């Protein structure tokens, strides 16, 4: 079993790598590597797309490395390999992003990415810190994670859902903020599971043992 964290020059890969390696050891989940090589992604049994940064820049970087984008899309769409997008990696799963400019996403989740607009104008953006999850839909990767558990968010844009069937969990920040999305073999978390202590590590372990 090989899990590949895709390195496309976006974000805190070291801590994500360590969190996935730790949980892989605990659940006998095989090897976890960070790679920017298309052939590694093509051979991966599981794919993680992390990400910090702006939607357009991240999509450009992802598509800028030879074969990487195509290998990822083929593994997920054609081979049905389990996929986990984190933060901007989750947002890239949407149909369209509207950060700075309109950019097509992967189109895997029925939603669009727009700036967070809290109903209370005193609420600061970025939405930064620990917020409590509201579970909307049971899912194997949420085993042992309950409404009220905290996760660590840091983002200024969020996925606005067009199809509530793809929404697994949200939180409240002057209105609903999409926290976890999912469809078929794909999961995305707006928060950082690798930074969310117990609940985050639990989600990673669940995902590593998930057989969709």
């Amino acid at each position, binding site marked *: 079993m090989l899990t590949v964290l895709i390195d496309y020059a976006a*974000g805190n890969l070291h801590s994500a790598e*360590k969190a996935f390696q730790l949980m892989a050891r605990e659940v006998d989940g095989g090897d976890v590597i960070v790679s920017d090589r298309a052939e590694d992604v093509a051979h991966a049994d599981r794919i993680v797309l992390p990400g910090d940064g702006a939607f357009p820049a991240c999509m450009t970087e992802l598509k800028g490395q030879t074969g990487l984008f195509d290998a990822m899309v083929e593994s997920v769409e054609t081979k049905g390999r389990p996929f986990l997008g984190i933060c901007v990696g989750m947002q890239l799963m949407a149909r369209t992003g509207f950060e700075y400019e309109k950019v097509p996403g992967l189109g895997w989740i029925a939603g669009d990415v727009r700036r967070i607009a809290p109903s209370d104008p005193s609420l*600061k953006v970025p939405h930064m*810190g*620990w*917020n409590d999850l509201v579970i909307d839909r049971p899912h194997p990767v949420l085993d042992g994670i309950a409404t009220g558990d905290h996760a660590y968010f840091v983002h*200024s844009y969020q996925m606005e859902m067009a199809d509530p069937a793809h929404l697994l969990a949200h939180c409240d920040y002057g209105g609903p903020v999409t926290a976890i999305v999912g469809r078929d073999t794909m999961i995305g978390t707006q928060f950082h599971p690798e930074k969310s202590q117990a609940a985050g590590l639990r989600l990673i372990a669940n995902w590593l043992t998930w057989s969709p």
Partner: protein
Amino acid sequence: MLKTRVIPCLDVADGRVVKGVNFVDLVDAGDPVEAAIAYNEAGADELCFLDIHATHENRGTMYDLATRTAEQCFMPLTIGGGVRTVDDVRSLLLAGADKVSFNSAAVADPDVVARAADRFGSQCIVVAIDAKTVAPGRWEIFTHGGRRSTGVDAVEFARTVIAKGAGEILLTSMDRDGTRAGFNIPLTRAISDAVSVPVIASGGVGTLDHLVEGVTEGGASAVLAASIFHFGDHTIGEAKAHMAAAGIPVRLS
């Protein structure tokens, strides 16, 4: 609901945790990674490492410390001190930091904030503002551990770096840092009201009531302290229980 964050800050020099009183008379308070693990287990909401010698000794930043901490602490880590370039930010993020804090470099060249935010996103770019009171209701930026006056107005500078793309302000009152007399509330309120992004209040915490005041009176989104936690006066749990009792939403689980 978003919770108010409690952030222990580890001032680091020569690979050890120190805490200066007004940035002099350093006292060794332990190994940074060991302290980080302890705070991780105690329920801290984030960790902050500040390399306090980096600027004036021209040392590089703390890649090794970030890496070793990220291997063992699965919580957000901010690193500051001696961060000068976009490449410094990239190296720290790769090493394990989640957010990187500019200080003197942003004063010298606010555009470095824009370059870093464009590359990595505002969410991971913090600007640390060290401010001293120069007149009632007026605060000025000081750099290089509080030794160098810049003539730059703190509130104006906060607005400038937010416009450049900073995602958070780490605000330290140089009048209060190390005094245990409480946050500079007027300064905290002025900056918090001036910017749309979260403000971390820092400098001067001596009691748990000071943490409450930073939020309720200062308008801070997070409170940062060192001495009261490092020397065992209070635990993170006690701080959060005290804040919760005052009606502030905190993460207790």
